[in-house]
């Protein structure tokens, strides 16, 4: 009796529960990133003489390339969703592979930038320019959390792609994973201007 009542209950938003679950996660995660960016702004205003170490070459140029790579990966992920919904499994898998590749390129560019900064003496609590040490803590903290999301996204797309190929997952799973990937892109839309462009020398 209970089971039959459950089965006829309509979804309140007309979407699968996994998609609603992903949306709720995204809202919670957006609050986390919002809190980190507000904390960064708070520390920056409270510390006169905040370091603005970035110059166009290589940091901002690298950031622009990373932004273009991530935006392009969102477009390729849309391609994966459209192909999956149209029943073109092979095309969807190809789009997902390109998305993963772009995610790896983004992570590699990010790590290269990190290593260059560490080589200059930047640490979580060390500022080679002699300014507030909180710069390193906020920079590595915010970009590190975002990088963790990118790497997780690449792994998630890989797992869903494999399951989709084997018939274990369907187009709705691909769409739900795409939602997460677009969110990672969306967070970067705030990290790049606030953490990079606002710190141009």
């Amino acid at each position, binding site marked *: 009796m209970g089971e039959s009542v459950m089965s006829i209950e309509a979804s309140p938003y007309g979407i699968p529960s996994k998609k609603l679950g992903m949306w709720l996660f995204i809202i919670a995660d957006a*609050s986390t990133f919002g809190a980190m960016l507000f904390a960064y702004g708070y520390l920056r205003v409270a510390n006169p003489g905040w370091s603005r170490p970035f110059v166009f070459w290589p940091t901002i140029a690298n950031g622009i390339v990373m932004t273009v790579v991530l935006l392009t990966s969102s477009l390729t992920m849309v391609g994966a969703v459209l192909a999956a919904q149209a029943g073109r499994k092979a095309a969807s898998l190809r789009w997902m592979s390109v998305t993963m590749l772009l995610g790896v390129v983004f992570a590699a560019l990010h790590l290269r930038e990190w290593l260059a900064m560490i080589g200059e003496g930047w640490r979580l609590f060390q500022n080679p320019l002699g300014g507030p040490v909180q710069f390193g803590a906020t920079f590595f903290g915010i970009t590190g959390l975002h990088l963790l999301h990118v790497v997780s996204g690449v792994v998630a797309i890989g797992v869903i792609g494999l399951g989709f190929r084997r018939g274990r997952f369907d187009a709705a799973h691909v769409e739900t994973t795409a939602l997460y990937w677009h969110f990672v892109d969306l967070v970067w839309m705030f990290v790049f201007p606030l953490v990079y462009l606002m710190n141009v020398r």
Partner: protein
Amino acid sequence: MPGMRVYVIVWIGLLVIVAAEVAATYAHFTVGAQLAVLLALAVLEAGIALLYFMHLKYERPSLFWSLIPALVVVLVLMDHFWPDAVRLLHQRLPAP
């Protein structure tokens, strides 16, 4: 759901916004004006991504109204405590 052509146009639009952000960075604004311009462009960019890439434009309005205002309220509440950062400046102890 629109076809790939619409998404390519959206992607180009997002790239144009990124170019505008970089241009605004080197336009010699004051720090406050630079922050305002960059934030406005970032919100515009995120809005376009939400509506098109994340398909919020094609979902029921109830989904939008259940999710987005809640996030905005949370962020505004965080912003409410922002002036504390300025207050902190006046609470510094003089150097010995």
